């Protein structure tokens, strides 16, 4: 028969045990908490170099679009050129060049696009010439006047056409070069990059096919280009095109009109392709010569609306009336 004192002793014993267990639990919990706090980041990061985004600096908008499509959330793509300038001729300041120097990847268009690159100091190991694979197929710009020194001096080469992305096959190759560079940086994401590239390539090839279909309706149609920026488009899709040097936001002078008339004599084009929306005066003037206007935006800089694909789709749609 238990006496009260035994009961009390037992109670005390159990109480002590509960206290001990309570402390033990707290201790274990604390230990687990500490372990998790200390090692979780390590465990999380053990699978590879997943920490942080790749910083990518580009020299034009098409490359920005391609890089964003392929890299997704794993990269921060920066295109520092102001929205109202032609990136091919934009010159960044020293601070911006410094930002380029610090980037994980610097995507270049190639074909001497972005002239400032040749005069800047950039880390070659992080530069990617996205058109290097097809540099043997660059187009020399027409009517480019070079210079040399002395009777036998080498010519200065500044006469390449550089809007390579308007040949959508080249655009896909440039995107492929970006994919390769990204995969080298983040090998563990290669699969994802490949998938994204495949989707982008499909979109670009769809555009490629669509333009071919449009042009096939009238392959020899003479066309005018307001600026010699459609060389790659012209070659890829077999356009019968001649260029002048007109700005969409400037009224052509008399000399330019005369030049145009002379061209029309041997090249009776009915359509002029503009880089941007031309002035009404220019449009009316062309109309009087029987030349209509359409816009095919090279999209070298960030578009005011949409994205690269939507702009190109619009470009293709704009071409359709000319080839009907």
């Amino acid at each position, binding site marked *: 028969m238990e006496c009260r004192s035994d009961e009390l002793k037992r109670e005390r014993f159990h109480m002590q045990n509960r206290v001990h267990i309570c402390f033990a639990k707290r201790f274990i919990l604390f230990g687990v908490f500490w372990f998790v706090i200390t090692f979780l980041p390590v465990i999380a990061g053990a699978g590879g170099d997943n920490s942080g985004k790749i910083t990518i600096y580009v020299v034009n908008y098409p490359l920005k679009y391609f890089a964003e499509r392929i890299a997704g959330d794993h990269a921060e793509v920066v295109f520092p050129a102001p929205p109202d300038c032609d990136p091919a001729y934009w*010159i960044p300041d*020293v601070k911006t*060049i*410094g930002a380029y*120097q610090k980037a994980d990847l610097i995507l270049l268009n190639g074909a001497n696009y972005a*002239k400032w690159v*040749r*005069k*800047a*100091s*950039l*880390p*070659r*190991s992080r530069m990617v010439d996205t058109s290097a694979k097809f540099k043997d197929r660059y187009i020399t710009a027409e009517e*480019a*006047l*070079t*210079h*040399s*020194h*002395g*009777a036998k*001096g*080498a*010519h*200065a*080469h*500044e006469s390449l056409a550089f809007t390579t992305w308007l040949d959508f096959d080249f655009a896909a190759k440039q995107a492929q070069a970006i994919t390769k560079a990204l995969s080298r940086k983040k090998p563990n994401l290669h699969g994802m990059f490949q998938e994204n590239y495949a989707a982008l390539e499909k979109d670009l090839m769809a555009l490629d096919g669509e333009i071919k279909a449009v042009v096939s309706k009238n392959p020899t149609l003479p066309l005018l280009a307001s600026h010699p920026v459609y060389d790659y488009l012209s070659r890829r899709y077999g356009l019968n095109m001649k260029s002048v040097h007109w700005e969409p936001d400037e009224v052509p002078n008399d000399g330019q009109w005369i030049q145009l008339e002379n061209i029309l004599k041997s090249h009776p084009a009915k359509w002029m392709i503009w880089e941007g929306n031309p002035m009404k005066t220019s449009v009316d003037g062309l109309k009087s010569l029987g030349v209509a206007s359409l816009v095919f935006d090279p999209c070298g800089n960030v578009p005011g609306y949409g994205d690269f694909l939507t702009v190109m789709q619009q470009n293709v749609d704009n071409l359709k009336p000319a080839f009907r």
Partner: protein
Amino acid sequence: MIDSLYIAWKYICFNKARTVTLIACITLIGFLPVSLELLLDESEQQLMSRAATTPLVVGVRGSSLDLVMNTLYFGDEVPELITMAASDRVMETDLALPIPVYVRFRARGHPIVGTTLDYFEFRGLKVAEGQQMAVLGDCVVGAGAAEKLGLKPGDELVSSPENMFDLAGVYPLKMKVTGVLQKSHTSDDLAVFVDLKTTWVIQGLGHGHQDVTVLKDPTLVLKRTEDNVAATAKLYHYMEITDENIDSFHFHGHMTGYPVTAVIAAPYDAKSGAILQGRYLSKEERHQIVEPEEVIDGLLQNIFRIKNVLDAVISVVALATVMAIVLVFALSIRLRQREMETVFKLGCSRMTMARLVASEILMIVVASGFLCTGMVLLVDQFSNNLVRTLFIR
């Protein structure tokens, strides 16, 4: 003991010339081999550490030592030039990162190293003051060169002509100092770094001038055709790259054919390095790929052979010096014969004299020891700079 030392000290002080000579001789016997060993160890360390951090170097076939000395230590001997095609070739293999270097020109006695930004990352060089070079004509200066030339960010530095009568090409170019590097205790401290393209401008492969295509002065135009305008030599080339004229700077010909002195190749892994080296084994190959560590090791082996001879010579000289010192003390004892007799007559043992002479020797040796230790510590303290100044520039 103290009294013996006291008398010995008095004797030493009285015979200053003899004492100083003895101390100098003993100090030199100890100092020379030890300091030589220190300097050689430091040389070996500096040479090897620099070589060990440079995996492979591609250059023209020929003297691998000249190639390595010019590439790693910016030595005066400029190896035969190769072209940027060599760098592109390494890049295309996808086995190594190529870092072209062009070390040919100088600015106020300091080597101008034309390279890419990858060089700084490769060598772990950081800008201490100012910022990294950004455009043509910019330069960053090693800490040592900045100190010697009194340069800081914002200053200007003009490249030196290759020789006094260099009339035909290498123009002095006024460069802008944009930054000063942190001290690295390597040859980089004494160098002036520019972009590779800037060295080509110095050479005259790139330049800036008025737009030739719109020139009106007929004396500036040699020949005008439909697609090209050939300018005469009268056309003025800018000797300084500024914000106003940088747009006019351009290069003639293809950059693939532009010269460099070497290409540092940093393989991505050991296997890639081995494969890359294998690609240069052909007998028809015009280039060579060397492991700087091997080249320097070979150089050091030769140095150590010479050192062994030097050690032998020093040993013989040391032996002769010791014998001379022993003779000096023996003669000294003989000269003090009367003193010995007096001391004996006064009531001391003959060992007293021996004790006095021993005290003298002890003091001289201890003084020499302290002096030698001090000098050795001094050499050790400055060995890094001494070696760089005396042996490696």
